[in-house]
């Protein structure tokens, strides 16, 4: 039985407010993720971007209730279809997991249990959440594999994970994630481990899910180019905090946080010759232990000045849904708009019409 609260399609599917994750370390609580808020609408693809270590996976795992390191504390609120996920009893959360919210991971090589066939593993998920018989579940697994573009699906279902290529494995992973028609799919860097052509195919597949399966997607990546091609709105995380958030088109046209601007500057242009030297951001982001007072980006920011290092900059609105956690806009010296070099997918356009540009 589902603890269903009335849910109308007008309210967003997932509303996350002030989500924070703390873990104890060296006798004190350190924050891995701090006050992250965002919403995912029905059939929307939301991008969660940031360098490695910025807290993207921790955010996703917190939503799924998959964080299990001892002493971990999750605070704030995450309402999925009106139900509060934070603090939900594990038994109830487990019912949602895999059925209403599904997740796929970065490395398809290691994400399947090596000793069972792909088909068996998909069936297992179906049978955990529905009352289908073995035969029906088997049939459904094959249908799903076919829908995900796996050639010769009946045969592939009999294969073991190590017998499939990375791309096929990720397709199988997506088939498994979609097996119970989840309304939200969390994809944690699903293409990072794949080569470029396969990556483009998987992106195409993910983009098509909202029309083919009606799913919303929380898409985690560190690649701004992928965001441009895939996401309707974007959330830039830096050191566990929101740096900037807004519709992808706005964010790409008017990056208002120097970190976003730097990330955008490091995307290779799609057309024209690839420059010999792409600008990169010097040094690495701070770990949760070494986060400075004030703006976490200050040590690497070319615009850093005194107000940046005294207190943590608040998230200030730039336009309707666009906001950035930087002192520059309030000081009246916003970053200049960017000359569009990257095409962004039109928000909510029919996915099959979106031009796919392999990176």
């Amino acid at each position: 039985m589902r603890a269903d609260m009335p849910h109308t399609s007008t309210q967003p599917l997932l509303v996350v407010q002030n989500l924070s994750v703390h873990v104890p370390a060296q006798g004190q609580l350190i924050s891995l993720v701090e006050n992250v808020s965002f919403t995912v609408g029905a059939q929307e693809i939301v991008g969660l971007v940031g360098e490695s270590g910025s807290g993207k996976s921790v955010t996703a795992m917190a939503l799924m209730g998959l964080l299990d390191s001892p002493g971990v504390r999750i605070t704030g609120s995450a309402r999925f279809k009106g139900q509060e996920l934070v603090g939900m009893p594990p038994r109830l959360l487990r019912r949602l997991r895999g059925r209403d919210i599904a997740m796929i991971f970065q490395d398809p090589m290691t994400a399947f249990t090596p000793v069972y066939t792909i088909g068996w593993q998909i069936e297992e998920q179906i049978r955990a959440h529905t009352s289908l018989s073995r035969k029906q579940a088997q049939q459904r697994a094959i249908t799903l594999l076919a829908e995900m573009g796996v050639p010769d699906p009946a045969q592939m279902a009999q294969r073991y994970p190590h017998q499939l290529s990375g791309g096929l494995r990720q397709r199988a992973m997506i088939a498994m994630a979609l097996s119970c028609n989840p309304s939200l799919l969390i994809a944690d860097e699903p293409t990072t481990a794949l080569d470029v052509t396969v990556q483009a195919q998987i992106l195409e597949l993910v983009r098509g899910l909202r029309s083919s399966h009606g799913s919303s997607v929380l898409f985690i990546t560190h690649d701004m180019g992928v965001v441009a091609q895939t996401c309707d709105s974007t959330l830039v995380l830096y050191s566990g905090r929101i740096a900037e958030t807004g519709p992808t088109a706005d964010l790409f046209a008017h990056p208002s946080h120097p970190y976003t601007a730097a990330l955008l500057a490091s995307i290779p242009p799609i057309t024209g010759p690839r420059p010999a030297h792409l600008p990169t951001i010097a040094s690495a982001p701070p770990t949760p232990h070494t986060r400075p007072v004030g703006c976490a980006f200050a040590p690497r920011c070319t615009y850093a000045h005194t107000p940046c290092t005294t207190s943590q900059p608040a998230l200030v609105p730039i336009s309707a849904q666009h906001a950035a956690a930087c002192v520059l806009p309030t000081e009246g010296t916003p970053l200049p708009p960017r000359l569009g070099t990257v095409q962004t997918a039109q928000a909510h356009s029919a996915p099959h019409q979106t031009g796919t540009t392999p990176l």
Partner: protein
Amino acid sequence: MLLPLLRRLGQTVFVLFGISVLVFAVFFATPGADPTARIAGRNASPQTLEKVRQEYGFNRPIPVQYATMMKKLFITQDLASYVDRGERVVPEIMRAAPVTLSLVGGAALIWVVAAITMGTLAAAFKDTWVDRTLMLLGLIGISIPVFWLGQVTNLVTQSRYHNTWLFSWVPGLGYIPLSQDPWGWFKTLVTPWCVLAVMFIGIYSRVLRADLVALANEDFMRTARAKGLSPTRILLRHGLRTSLVTFVSLFGLDFAQLVGGGALLTEVVFGLPGVGHLTYQALTNLDLPLIMATVMYSAVFVVVANALVDMLYLFLDPRVRDAR
């Protein structure tokens, strides 16, 4: 699937051949030592020496000697011990083998069941008192010498408390064949089984727990959790099933080693006339034919058991199946 099995069989035969040559060389073809005198035993008469020399062909080339020895071991099976008044060696081993198999088989069943239960429970209740208690018990089991434990249980069940209701059912030391009296067979062996199993329960449960705990961080375990499976199902169907691959390889080696004579101490303490006992006796008497035969028996057993484990491995792990 058939081809790798055949290949494995070929390897097994080859390894056995190698071992037999090696053992033969060590005992009979060592330069400077006359095997005739060693087989005949101390203070043998010249007639006996001459008889042995003829019988084993020690006056002929070494390959012929080897072939004679193998023939006497495997084909005519009339290799005899001169030290032990012409007792035939091969039937002696054939009588000892079922005893050892009964002892080790029963103990293995106990230790596998107990170790899987303890290891899985400890992993499921990781870092709680359940885990700590079970692992402490395991550690104690590992540290108790089997010889000492055997003596103590004997003291308790055979003399000190033998007349109480608790232990009055325990029969005297020795072996009762299964075919003769199954219930008696069980009663004589149940104590040795437990004693022999104790150390292995300790080792296996700790290894399994460590394996399961390490597996919990694997990507596929996270996937299993993300699928919304129950914790029990995740631990058993995904964790334990994957750990079994390591478990089985460890088990194969220990089982083979014990059946090959490694249960010597337990056999001696409980007066079981098994292979370990026989080896011990052969070594103390310097009974060369018997030593040769027991070593060959152990080698055959260890190698065959390894081959069996490898085949089980093929069955348990699809990755190994394809790698060959």
